[in-house]
């Protein structure tokens, strides 16, 4: 399926345009390439409300996975007299399949710092934190160097650019816990506690870190503030389609020729993204596409036929609306942009087991449905994978996932339930085959089956 030539591969780049400029990691080069203009513009010519308004106009949606409008989130921050407010950057990137924020921080640390300064000013945060997953142990050095350089050049510290605005940015490492990507768990962790999510309300915008109004935003979201301020919210919103404005970083992995981080403008098709040489470059060894998890491990897995086209037979595109077209019955989600491709030789039961093990490991244990349910799901999936399962196990799995979803304090429960539900919904015959052909299932995989057949579209 080498169709690369028919695609328009001239996507706009707003974040990664300069990623390959030599020395862009350092202040002097970054500044020479036009860096920190948005700080000058925002702090010298705009009020806090005007910045929030620009971000609202841009239509920027949270890039961590939930997709909530960033400008609206900013506008919720409470401003009680005399109480400090905080911006916290969520760099706890831990959703399997997702490694885009790491790329941004490693190669363009100043882009993040620049976005953080503008956002800190807009929100009135004089002390801003970057909470980064502990395993990214070498990245705090890169960020702290960028912070020191920005400070030495008057973009951080006291009285930034003579505007009277003070801001310090500190980096805090986590210590290995997926749950700390959930914003209230992250705040707990920042306070030196276990990462147990809080019950909302109160929302962090009212009572966050140390009981103070707090906004938590993803790395990519904050980096996107830079082009929004430079070009204006309206210009930013012209890129993309519908409510999927601007560009999105996609980290692509699994069975593809060119795994990596790509910036897309959300108007390209899923098929182009997988097969174009500009992006994933197709599937290795001439194998066929079996399935894909398009937005990080939590979002529903889709068989090839429903991935490339919607249930209505329309082309599916790489944006929020199109990826979720059909709801959970026949669609998936953009999520965090962690794009995982499975070729015809992969086993859906084994993949689902691996993800279930992940969620069991990462459940914080506060809510019984999640703590117990993730353990049960892992055990049942392992039993099925080893050819020791029963047909009734598949129904039990369905029952358990349905009892986790919506019954927990935080979305980890949903995130654990959805992959299991989607795998059974679309690949039930493969699960059943692991029971009815238990011995054979230990020697070979189920294969492509009918998952790549064209879908029948009723007229």
């Amino acid at each position, binding site marked *: 399926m080498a169709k690369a030539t028919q695609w328009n591969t001239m996507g706009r780049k707003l974040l990664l345009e300069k990623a390959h400029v030599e020395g862009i990691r350092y202040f002097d080069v970054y500044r020479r390439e036009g860096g920190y203009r948005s700080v000058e513009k925002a702090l010298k010519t705009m009020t806090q409300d005007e910045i929030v308004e620009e971000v609202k106009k841009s239509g920027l949606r949270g890039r961590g996975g939930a997709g909530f409008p960033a400008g609206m989130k900013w506008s919720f921050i409470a401003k009680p007299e005399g109480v400090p407010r905080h911006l916290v950057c969520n760099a706890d990137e831990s959703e399997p399949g997702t490694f885009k924020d790491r790329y941004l921080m490693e190669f363009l640390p100043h882009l993040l710092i620049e976005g953080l300064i503008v956002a800190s000013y807009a929100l009135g945060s004089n002390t801003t934190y970057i909470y980064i997953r502990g395993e990214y142990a070498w990245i705090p050095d890169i960020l702290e160097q960028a912070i020191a350089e920005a400070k030495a050049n008057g973009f951080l510290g006291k009285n930034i650019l003579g505007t009277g605005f003070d801001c310090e940015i500190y980096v805090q490492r986590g210590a290995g816990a997926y749950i700390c990507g959930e914003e209230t768990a992250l705040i707990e962790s920042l306070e030196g506690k276990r990462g147990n999510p809080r019950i909302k309300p109160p929302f962090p915008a009212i009572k966050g870190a*140390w009981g103070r109004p707090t906004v938590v935003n993803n790395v990519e979201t904050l980096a996107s503030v830079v082009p929004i301020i430079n070009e204006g919210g309206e210009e930013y919103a012209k890129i993309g389609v519908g409510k999927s404005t601007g560009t999105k970083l996609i980290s692509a992995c699994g069975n593809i020729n060119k795994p990596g981080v790509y910036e897309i403008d959300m108007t390209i098709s899923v098929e182009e993204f997988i097969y174009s040489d500009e992006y994933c470059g197709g599937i290795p060894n001439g194998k066929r596409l079996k399935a894909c998890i398009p937005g990080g491990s939590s979002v529903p897995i889709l068989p090839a036929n429903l991935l490339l086209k919607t249930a209505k037979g329309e082309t599916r595109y790489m944006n929020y609306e199109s990826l979720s077209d059909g709801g959970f019955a026949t669609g998936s989600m953009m999520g965090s942009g962690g794009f995982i491709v499975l070729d015809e030789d992969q086993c859906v039961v084994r993949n689902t087991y691996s993800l279930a093990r992940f969620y069991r490991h990462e459940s914080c244990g506060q809510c019984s449905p999640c703590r117990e349910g993730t353990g049960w799901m892992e055990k049942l999936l392992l039993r099925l994978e080893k050819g020791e399962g029963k047909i009734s196990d598949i129904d039990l799995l369905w029952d358990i996932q349905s009892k986790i979803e919506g019954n927990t304090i935080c979305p980890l429960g949903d995130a654990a339930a959805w992959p299991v539900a989607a795998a059974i919904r679309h690949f039930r015959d493969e699960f059943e085959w692991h029971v009815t052909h238990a011995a054979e299932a230990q020697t070979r995989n189920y294969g492509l089956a009918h998952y790549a057949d064209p879908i029948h579209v009723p007229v």
Partner: protein
Amino acid sequence: MVQFSEERLAKVKEIIARYPDGKQKSALLPLLHLAQENFGGWLSAETMDYVASLLQIEPIEVYEVATFYSMYNTKPVGKYVFEVCQTGPCMLNGSDNIIAYISQTLGIKAGETTADGLFTLKTAECLGACGYAPMMQLGKHYREHLTKEKVDAIIAECRAAAAANN
């Protein structure tokens, strides 16, 4: 006795100053990283009690955090800890084979340490390197696109480094 050097204590002070007054407990995660690095790669009860005293909090507040996060070792580990990712995308790219190969080469199962105290093998859940799978964390850095040959080279590299330090 567990005790940071003057230089380390200055760092501790600097870290605590990042947080609001009276909220020094916020420095717990960074201090535990520092302590683990400083005191043999793991957190003994004595180390945790020391961190509690530095932050003027109860020891239990340290224990409950140390046992929650996967990066803190509450038991001794080898000089070199191989933390191999086994989640979804890494699995699709053969992480199980890498884990089995390390296990066979070093003669230890996941969670165990070699008799000479040099190597510990741990399985890890998603480390955010999915596009560079299979991979593992070794100390501060990631080792990516692992093959059996690369694993052999890493083991040899660790042995050489250990020999040079002794």
